[in-house]
Structure formats: structure tokens, C-alpha cells
């Protein structure tokens, strides 16, 4: 780190020397904290404190009213591992993540390759691909519930027009998750698309010119230059996407409320139900911590993988 600049200031402007000198020791040592203080205050109040109080709660039999607190020790944590609803909602979360991540990465890449062009067409493509991302979850799900509607919804309308039988997408156990995944891909692929697009635009044109002079055709340029140069971006997108997919709640809550028969209920929805419907704050906190641990493990593992690969390059 570079040395602080005030010495130079005093040298340059003798008239102000008195001020820094009298205030210097204290101001120099702690002054910077003032810049950090507003964020820090909010960080402590609305992130650190809930983290600590949540952990504390997980050892008690706390209800939402918070009146009676009975110390349970590790009981909530023991219950957690024997609770089939925890495991089934965890499984649903992982299934959703496994189903949604590959298309959200691959389609984003294809879109970026297709939309990396100038002019009006480029603008229109970028607008179409990213537009759904700016919509609120509720708008997205209102539209898609209507699209999946049996009888007169768009998807089933097209299915019947093509001679297929209708599917009651959101009320069929092994179709509901697929329906949610399709909606999610449509809604959120735009963000990954923009990340890829930015990376593509960062590749210098000279690289392609040189390759063309060497006689590389379009396909060779794609597989030998573009895709390898995008590998770091792909790593980044996969990490961000895995973590984002694991946090699934909004679309499922709004489209299926976790049904049919809890077949789509993700872990965050189980936390929500435990805390706000069953009022078991302590137990909900324990489940939150389990989920938190999973997110941290995924993120750290990916980061390790990532930085390891970076060093090898």
C-alpha cells in the first residue's frame, strides 16, 4: 500500500500545515473509519445481528411471538436430520439447480454469440434476450401460469393444435418442476447472456484478423479462439448460476406453492413455512443454517476450483 499523502500536502501548501498537524494523530489514524461507518452500521444491524440472533434462536424453542423461550440445546439440529421434509425440499432444490443451470449457461452463450453484432438488429436481439430479466417475479409467473393453463393456455393450445394431448403442467408431479425450469430459463438467462456478451466484446478484433490471415474458418475461430477465451467467464457464470439456482423460491412459491404434493417445494420455502406458517422460529433458523452451509460450501469449492485453474493458466 502506498504511503498516505499528507506529507506532500504540507510541503506543497505551507498555509494549511497548522491544521493537519494539530488534528493529525487522531484524525489520520481513525479518520478513514468515518467513510466506512454508515455501511458498517447497516451491515451490523441488518446482516451480522440477524446471523448471530438466528444462530442463537436455533438452540431455543422460540415461537414468532418470541415470548416463551425454552432452551433446547441441539434438539432442533437433531430434528433437522430426521425430518423428511428437510431432505425432500433439499432434493427439490438440487433437482431444480441441476435442471436449470446447464440451459442457463448454454443458451446464454448461444445468445451472446448470436447477438454480438452492431446496428439495429443487435439492439433488438439484446433487448429481446434480456427484457424478461427486468420483470418482477410476480409478473413473470402471472404470465406463465396463464401460458401453462389447460384448455386455453398458449402451450397446451399449441400442443393440441399439433395433435398432442394436453398436460396440466403445474399440477402434475413430474411436469411441474420442468415447467418452473422453463419459466426460469426464459426469465433469467438474460443476465448470463450479458456477462457472455461483455466477455465476447472484450476479445480484441486483431485476434480474429490474425486467425483469418492464417486461414482459420468460422468454425475453427469459434472452437479454437472464442470458446477457449471464454472459459474464465464460463467458470464465473457457472458459480453465480449455481448459487442463484440454489436460492430458488419466488417462482415456485408463486407458480405451484411448492405443489403438487410438495413435489416442487424448495428448501427456502420450507424455511418460510416453518417460520411464518408454523411459527417455529428456532427450527426455521436451524434449517436456514443448514442451507447457508451448503451455499458456502458450493461457493468456496467453486472458488478453489476457479483460482486453481487460474494459476495453472
Amino acid at each position, binding site marked *: 500500500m502506498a504511503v498516505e499523502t499528507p506529507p506532500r500536502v504540507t510541503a506543497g501548501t505551507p498555509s494549511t500545515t497548522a491544521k493537519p498537524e494539530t488534528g493529525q494523530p487522531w484524525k489520520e489514524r481513525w479518520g478513514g473509519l468515518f467513510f*466506512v461507518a*454508515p*455501511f458498517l452500521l447497516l451491515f451490523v444491524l441488518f446482516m451480522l445481528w440477524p446471523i448471530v440472533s*438466528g444462530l442463537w434462536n436455533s438452540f431455543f424453542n422460540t415461537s414468532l411471538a418470541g415470548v416463551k423461550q425454552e432452551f433446547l440445546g441441539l434438539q432442533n439440529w437433531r430434528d433437522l436430520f430426521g425430518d423428511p421434509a428437510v431432505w425432500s425440499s433439499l432434493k427439490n432444490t438440487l433437482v431444480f439447480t441441476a435442471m436449470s443451470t446447464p440451459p442457463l449457461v448454454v443458451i446464454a452463450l448461444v445468445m451472446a454469440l448470436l447477438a454480438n453484432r452492431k446496428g439495429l438488429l443487435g439492439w433488438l436481439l439484446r433487448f429481446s*434476450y434480456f427484457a424478461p430479466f427486468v420483470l418482477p417475479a410476480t409478473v413473470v409467473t*402471472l404470465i406463465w401460469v*396463464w401460458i401453462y393453463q389447460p384448455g386455453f393456455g398458449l402451450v397446451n393450445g399449441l400442443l393440441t393444435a399439433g395433435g398432442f394431448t394436453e398436460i396440466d403442467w403445474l399440477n402434475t408431479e413430474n411436469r411441474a418442476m420442468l415447467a418452473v425450469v422453463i419459466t426460469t430459463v426464459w426469465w433469467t438467462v438474460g443476465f448470463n447472456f*450479458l456477462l457472455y456478451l461483455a466477455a465476447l466484446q472484450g476479445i480484441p478484433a486483431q485476434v480474429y484478423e490474425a486467425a483469418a490471415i492464417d486461414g482459420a474458418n468460422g468454425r475453427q475461430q469459434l472452437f479454437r479462439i472464442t470458446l477457449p477465451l471464454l472459459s474464465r467467464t464460463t467458470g464465473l457464470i457457472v458459480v453465480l448460476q449455481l448459487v442463484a439456482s440454489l436460492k430458488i423460491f419466488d417462482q415456485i412459491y408463486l407458480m405451484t406453492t411448492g405443489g403438487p404434493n410438495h413435489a416442487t417445494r424448495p428448501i427456502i420455502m420450507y424455511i418460510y413455512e416453518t417460520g*411464518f406458517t408454523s411459527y417455529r422460529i428456532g427450527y426455521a433458523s436451524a434449517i436456514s443454517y443448514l442451507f447457508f452451509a451448503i451455499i458456502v460450501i458450493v461457493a468456496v469449492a467453486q472458488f478453489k476450483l476457479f483460482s486453481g485453474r487460474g494459476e495453472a493458466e
Partner: protein
Amino acid sequence: MTTATLPAATKPPRWNFPKTASAVGAVILAVIWLVPLLWALDTSLKPEPETTRAPITWLPESPTTDAYRSVIDQGDLIRWFFNSTIVSVLVTTLTLIVSVLAAYGFSRTKFPGRKVLFGLIIAGILVPPQVLIVPLFQEMTGLGLVDTYWGMVLPQVVAPVMVFVLKKFFDGISRDYEDAARVDGASRWRIVWSVMVPMSRPILVAVGIFTFIGAWNNFLWPFIVTTDPSMMTIPVGLANVQGSYGLRYAQIMASAVLGGLPLLIVYALFQRHVVRGVGDAGIKG
């Protein structure tokens, strides 16, 4: 295609077929992505009986804005729109101010414990807000902030990612500009606002737009911290629409269109900043 007839020496070998094919593919994909939006718009312009006709029809036979009128007459949507605007503007402004100050503090000043604090805040990036809903709601109940704007806003202002991204950006700005300002007698406070902020305007615009979109669209937290319909934001309020309108699809789609339109317009206007900003913040950051 015709490329074969061109003299190979003067032009680098090009294969035109993939170019045309990719343009066609790009447009097809764009149409697929737009169809759900168009279908919603289409439905919202139909009279109710037309929406539930068995073989689906595309264009409304007798287009009408009845659905929009009845949705707006009910009044809630305007109230929610107002709430969403207040909450999103507050979240965006406060996030920018607080994060810029913190980023400057971590990038340019020294104080005991600075590195430990920064590490702690960076670790905060890993904390999914969803994990905090239960204790945070208890806290808000204790503070009396349930069903208030501040109750919705304050937790959203804590964005460790912003501090991280901005600090990295500030690290890359040469100290010469500050030194010059200091020679002219500017305080560090002045330097933040008249040197650092103007120099990082593109990234601040991008970060601001994303914060605004995120705040406008945030569902889970406002959903938990509001129970009074008059305090709800658009995403939360619309969640109850399906139930209250019954099976009146034209009205449901009209409210979806109205709920989604403001951000589509914002995005269309700022697309350039959004695309560039993702590059600055996401790739280099």
C-alpha cells in the same frame, strides 16, 4: 455461397452461410423470447369471454382496453406503483452513497482493523438474504418497522458486493488526481464527491440501474415485511391478484403488463449502460 468465386488472396476466407444462418437463428430465438410478452399483451386486449375460447386465437377479434380500465379503477395498482417507486429510489440512492463511502474508505484510507473489516464485509457476499428472513423479521417487529418503507428499504441497502466492486474500481484510479485536488486544499470528503464519483460515473450508473431493478423486483423480503395491502410494492401486491380477480385473465394480464412496463421502458432507455456496466462490474470486477 458466392464467396468461392472471390479471389482468395485479397479477401480472408469467409463462409457466408453461417452468417445468414446465425442471423436467422438469432431472430427466431428473439421471437421465442418475445412471444410470452406478446401473448400477455394480446390477452390483456381481449374481452374476457374471448380469453377462454377453446382453440386459442392470436389477435383479439374485438380489441378493448376494458381490462386496463377496471384494473386501474380498483386503485391498488397505482398505490403499489407509488410504493415501489419510493422503495426503489431510496434503496438505490442509499446503496450508492453508503457503498461509495465505504469503498473509498477501504481503498484510500488507513485505520486500525481495516483489513479485518474488509474481509468480514467480503464474507458477507456469501450470505444469501433468504437465510436471514426469520431473524430479520423478528428484528423488524422489535424495531416497529413492519409495514413501513424503512423496514423494506434498510436491509436491501446492505450490499457487500457493491462495496467490493466499487473498491476494486477505485483501486484502479490513479492517485494523481487526488493529490492534485489535495494540493488545492480539498478535504477527503470533497475528494470522494468531486474526484472519485465523477471518475467512476459509468460504473455507478450501471450499479445504480441494477440496484434499482433488483429493488423494484425484490419479492421475498417486501412480501414478508408487509401485511397491509396499502404498503405493498408491485411484485407483492400482484401476488394476490390471481386470487382476487378469479379467472378474469384479461385483467390478470393487464395488471402483469402494467406491472412490467415501467422497467421495460427503463431498460430500453438505458440498455447501453446496462450492457457496458455488466462488463465493467462483472468481468473485470
